């Protein structure tokens, strides 16, 4: 664990000083500003729009953060061969792999926290109440977890892809599919095509599912969960009754276990290849 932390913090330090990622950080902050001002176009629905676009921008920046981190790191490893010095040090290769994931996760957390903070400041400045509440923070946290899963996927592709552009393409494609398969499965199940349904089902299980972490469409459900009862929720001014009950925590617990199991499985397969790879 000590070695993983050392490598992770070193990766974080490297990434933090890399100009591409500084530009990304500034981009992230400007995107948050755009989200707030887009909300203005929605007039009375300003708070809702600010929340939705805020979460969408957090998700988008998270995607680019993870992708760039791993592409930048992979470039240095393959082109500049910095990895050969590290692999003769007294560390295991899994330390290095876990350290990469940890380093990019730390950068992701920093970016997303900064975005939530700036969104809060801008909302207050514009006099918008209710943009950042606990439900928003929870939704943002699950987007962060989705970013952690994507980091693991990106590390997997850095090992199996032979070039940097290939790695970026595979990772991006998987990210897109991971948001698509749940909805695709719903559509296909309604069609009378059993073979197609089976194929889509296999893809559904195989491809990392990011929809499970995408709670941004369910902010009201999270609010209701936090409040605990319908009566209290209406008393607070909640204007919808989409749930039959106060809300269970199951939709929020299962994604955590999914991340643990799927992430570990993918890391194990990555480790197998990492151990066999020669430099």
């Amino acid at each position, binding site marked *: 664990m000590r070695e993983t932390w050392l490598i992770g913090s070193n990766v974080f330090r490297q990434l933090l000083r890399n100009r591409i990622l500084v530009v990304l950080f500034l981009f992230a902050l400007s995107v948050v500003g755009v989200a707030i001002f887009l909300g203005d176009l929605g007039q009375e629905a300003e708070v809702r*729009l600010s929340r939705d676009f805020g979460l969408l921008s957090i998700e988008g920046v998270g995607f680019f953060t993870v992708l760039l981190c791993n592409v930048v790191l992979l470039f240095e490893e393959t082109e500049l061969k910095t990895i050969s010095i590290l692999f003769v040090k007294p560390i295991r290769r899994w330390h290095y792999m876990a350290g990469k994931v940890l380093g990019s996760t730390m950068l992701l957390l920093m970016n997303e926290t900064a975005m939530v903070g700036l969104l809060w400041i801008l909302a207050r400045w514009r006099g918008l109440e209710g943009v950042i509440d606990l439900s928003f923070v929870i939704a943002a946290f699950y987007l962060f977890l989705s970013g952690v899963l994507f980091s693991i996927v990106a590390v997997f592709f850095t090992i199996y892809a032979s070039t940097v552009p290939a790695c970026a393409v595979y990772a991006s494609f998987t990210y897109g599919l991971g948001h698509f398969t749940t909805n695709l499965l719903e559509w296909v199940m309604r069609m009378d095509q059993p073979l197609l349904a089976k194929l889509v089902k296999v893809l559904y299980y195989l491809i990392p599912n990011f929809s499970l972490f995408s709670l941004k469409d369910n902010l009201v459900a999270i609010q209701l969960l936090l409040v605990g009862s319908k009566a209290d929720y209406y008393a607070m001014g909640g204007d*919808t009754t989409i749930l039959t009950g106060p809300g269970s925590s199951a939709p929020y617990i*299962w994604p955590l*276990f999914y991340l643990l199991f799927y992430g570990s499985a993918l890391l194990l397969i990555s480790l197998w290849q990492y151990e066999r790879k020669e430099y």
Partner: protein
Amino acid sequence: MDPPFFSSPSGNMSAKNTDIKLWLGAGLLFGLAAFCLEAGSKAQADISRLPAAMSQTVPPAIRSTSLMASMSDMRAAAADWSYIEALQYVGDVRNAKAHYKNTYDDYREILWLDPYFHFAVLEGCSILVWGNHNLVQGRELMEDAMRVDPKFSRYRLYYAAMAYTQKGVDRAAMLNFLQSEIQKPDAPEMLLREVGNIYSKYGKRDEAIRYWTQLLDRAREEQTVNLAKSQLAKLLGKTP
């Protein structure tokens, strides 16, 4: 001793056994992940908007970008963007010549994308009915919205207000549509008062008397009780 994962091609059996264990372990973890995915998707479907939305027919005029966004976990944001575009459309006076003909399609798209964007639906309906005087489309939009989210009481209030204030609507059909809602014990009293007013103004006298009598029995709010008494007095020709 060689580390277990680094199996030499020359045939290190213990390393190969470790490789097999690793793959079996990965397989087991994938299985557990699949189980969690099923359970999590089901739990989320219970609270998600997707089932309600998916049961609707896709609007014919929906933009391809909105359709793609809806398939990619961006329904709420796509609905917001469509809402901004709808507002821009109705805010542009140049569209008045065409009687803002795209308004229904725009708000129908928003409803499909996010059935719980209540504010947009109420606004769209108001624009169609009281702005564009397009009762047919306003009523269709509201009925679709009520089918998708039967629990949002304000839809019914707007629907009742439509029936009360507009000329040329099929009030009998609209009252029929509202019957199941007003029979519920927790139906909002504001809605019950509105329906009563429709009966009083446009309905038959017997029906109106029956309605207000029933309402008097179940009313809890003072405003409702007073209104029921005054309406009954008027209909029966008595002083309240």
